[in-house]
C-alpha cells in the first residue's frame, strides 16, 4: 500500500515539489486515469495492467494540455500567486468531477477480473495479492526512472533551473512553457500509471480522487518538497504508519496516524525529511 501511495505521490512530487506549482486537481487526474482504464477494459477488454502504458500516454497529453490551457495563466499572476494556483486548480478539480458525473454518472464501478486479480503469490510463506505486487514493482521502477530523469538528463536540469529563475533560463534559450508543459505531462502520466493499477482493486466513482489526494499531499510534504527520493520515502512511511495505526485504532481512524506523523515530522524538521525548499 505504501508503494502505491508513493506512486500517486510521485506525480505530485514532480508538479508540486519540483515545479512548485500547487495542484489541487491531482486527485481528479487519478480519477480520470481510473475511468480510462475502466473503459478500456469495458469496451475493448484490455486488462488494466496491460493498458497502463496507454493510459499513461493519454494522461501525458492531458496533463500537458491542462498546463497549456489553464495553469500557464495561473502562474502568470503577479499578486498572491499561491492563492490563484490553489483556487484555479481547485476550480478545475470541481469542473472535472462535474464532467465525470455528467458523462460517467455517479455510479460506483469496478473492474471485475484482471488476469492478475485474485491470485496470490507466496513469498517466503507470506501470501501477497498479485496486483499489489505489480503495483509495487511499477512504483519502484517509476521512482527510479524519475530520479534518473531529474538528476541525469538535460531536461531535469532545465526543469530545476526554470523553477529557480525563469528569467535567466529564457536568456539561455529554454522555453519555460515547453519545459513545464512536459513536466505536467510527465506528472500526469505517472498518476496515470497509478490510476491504471488502482483501477483493479478500488471502486471507481467521480469523487474517488479526493480521498487519495490529501494523502498524496501529505506524502510529498512529509518527504520534503523538491526531493524525489523524499516522496518515495514518504510513501513507504505513510503505508507503514497506516498499517500500524489500523492495528491499534479502529479502521476508520487509520488516517489519523498518517496525519499525526506528518505533524510530528514537520515540527522537528520544518522542511520535511529530505526537503530542499
Amino acid at each position, binding site marked *: 500500500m505504501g508503494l502505491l501511495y508513493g506512486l500517486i505521490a510521485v506525480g505530485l512530487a514532480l508538479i508540486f515539489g519540483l515545479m512548485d506549482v500547487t495542484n489541487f486537481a491531482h486527485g481528479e487526474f487519478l480519477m480520470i486515469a481510473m475511468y480510462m482504464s475502466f473503459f478500456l477494459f469495458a469496451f475493448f477488454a484490455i486488462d488494466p495492467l496491460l493498458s497502463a502504458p496507454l493510459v499513461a500516454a493519454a494522461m501525458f497529453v492531458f496533463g500537458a494540455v491542462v498546463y497549456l490551457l489553464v495553469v500557464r495563466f495561473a502562474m502568470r499572476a503577479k499578486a498572491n500567486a499561491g492563492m490563484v494556483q*490553489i483556487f484555479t486548480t481547485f476550480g478545475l478539480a470541481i469542473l472535472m468531477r*462535474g464532467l465525470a458525473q455528467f458523462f460517467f454518472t455517479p455510479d460506483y464501478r469496478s473492474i471485475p477480473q484482471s488476469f492478475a486479480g485474485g491470485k496470490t503469490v507466496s513469498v517466503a510463506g507470506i501470501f501477497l495479492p498479485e496486483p499489489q505486487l505489480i503495483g509495487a514493482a511499477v512504483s519502484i521502477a517509476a521512482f527510479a526512472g524519475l530520479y534518473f530523469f531529474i538528476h541525469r538528463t538535460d531536461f531535469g536540469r532545465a526543469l530545476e533551473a526554470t523553477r529557480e529563475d525563469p528569467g535567466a533560463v529564457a536568456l539561455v534559450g529554454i522555453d519555460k512553457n515547453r519545459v513545464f508543459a512536459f513536466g505536467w505531462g510527465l506528472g500526469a502520466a505517472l498518476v496515470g500509471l497509478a490510476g491504471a493499477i488502482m483501477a483493479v482493486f478500488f471502486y471507481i466513482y467521480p469523487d474517488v480522487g479526493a480521498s487519495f489526494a490529501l494523502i498524496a499531499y501529505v506524502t510529498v510534504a512529509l518527504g520534503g518538497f523538491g526531493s524525489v527520493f523524499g516522496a518515495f520515502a514518504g510513501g513507504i512511511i505513510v503505508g507503514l504508519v497506516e498499517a500500524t495505526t489500523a492495528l491499534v485504532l479502529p479502521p476508520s481512524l487509520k*488516517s*489519523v496516524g498518517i496525519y499525526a506523523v506528518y*505533524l510530528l515530522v514537520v515540527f522537528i524538521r520544518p522542511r520535511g525529511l529530505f526537503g530542499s525548499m
Partner: protein
Amino acid sequence: MDKTFAARRRRDLIIAAVLAGLAALAPLVIKDVYVQNILILTLMYAALSQSWNILSGYCGQISLGHALYFGIGAYTTELLFTKFGVLPWFGMLAGGVIAAVIAMGLGYPFFRLRGHYFVIATIVIAEIGLLLFQNWEWAGAAMGITIPVRGDSWLKFQFMRSKLPYFYFALALCSLAWFVTWWLEDSKWGFWWRAVKDNPEAAESLGVVVFNSKMGAAAVSAFLVALGGAFYAQFLAYIDPESVMGFQFSLLMALPAVLGGIGTLWGPVLGAAILIPMTELTRSYIGGSGRGVDLIVYGALIVAISLALPQGLVSLFSRSKAKGATR
C-alpha cells in the same frame, strides 16, 4: 497621505452602515423564503470569509483548515445545548473561546512552518478533528446531532415560523466581522500583520513580535468563525462532522475572500455577494439532474475568475481605491 487614509476609512464606514441598513430593510420587500434563505447563507459566508481573511489575508498565514473552528463552534453549542441544556447564546461564546484557545495552542508549533508545509498542516489538523468527531460516540459520531425543538424564541435561538430572526443574526454577525476587520486595519495589530505578511524578517528587526502577531490574528479569526459555526448549527437544526468540518468547507470559506480580493476590507463581502447566490441558483436550477452540471458551471466560474482577476473583484473598482485597500 494620512488625511486621505482617514477619509477613506470614514467613507468605508459610511458605506458599510448604509449597506447594512439597506440589508436590514430587504425583508420588507423580499418575502420569498427561498430567496431569504440565500441571503442568510450569503451573509454567513461573508462573515466567515471576513474572519478567515484576518489570518490568511491580512496576516498572510494561509489556512485551509478553518473548518475545524467552524465545527468546534457548531459542536460546542449543540453538545452544551442537547446534553446540558445550556442556552445556545452561551454555547456560542464558549465555542468561540474554545476555538480561539485551540487556535493559539496550534499556533505555537504551526507558526514555525512556512509556505506549503503550513498550509498542509492546517488541512491535516482539521482532517484529524473531522475523523475524531466521526468516531466520537457521545457526540453522535458520523450520524451527527439533530437539535431538538424547544420552542420559538430569541432566548433559545430557535425559530420555526420565520427565517427572519436568522437573517438578522447573520446580518449582525457579518457586520461584526466587517467592523472588527475595519477596526483592526488601522490598529497596531493591523500594521503588524501587514508587515509580517510582506516581510517577516524585516518586521522582526523593526520590533514587531511576529509570533505574537500571528497568534493574535489566529485567535480573532478562529473566534469569529466559531460564532458562524454556532449560528449554522442552530439555523440548520442538524449537524454532522462532514458537513461542518469537511475540507470542502475550509475551501468554501476561503473562496469568497480570494475571489473578492484577499487581504482587503471589501473583498470577502463582495465575493460572497456574487458567489453564494450564484452557487445556490445553479444548484437549484441546473443541479436537479444529479448529473453534475452545476459542478461544471461552478468549477469553470472559479477557474475563470481566478485567472481573469488574480487580485480579486475589488480590483475592478477605481484604481486608487483598490490601491488603498491593499496597502
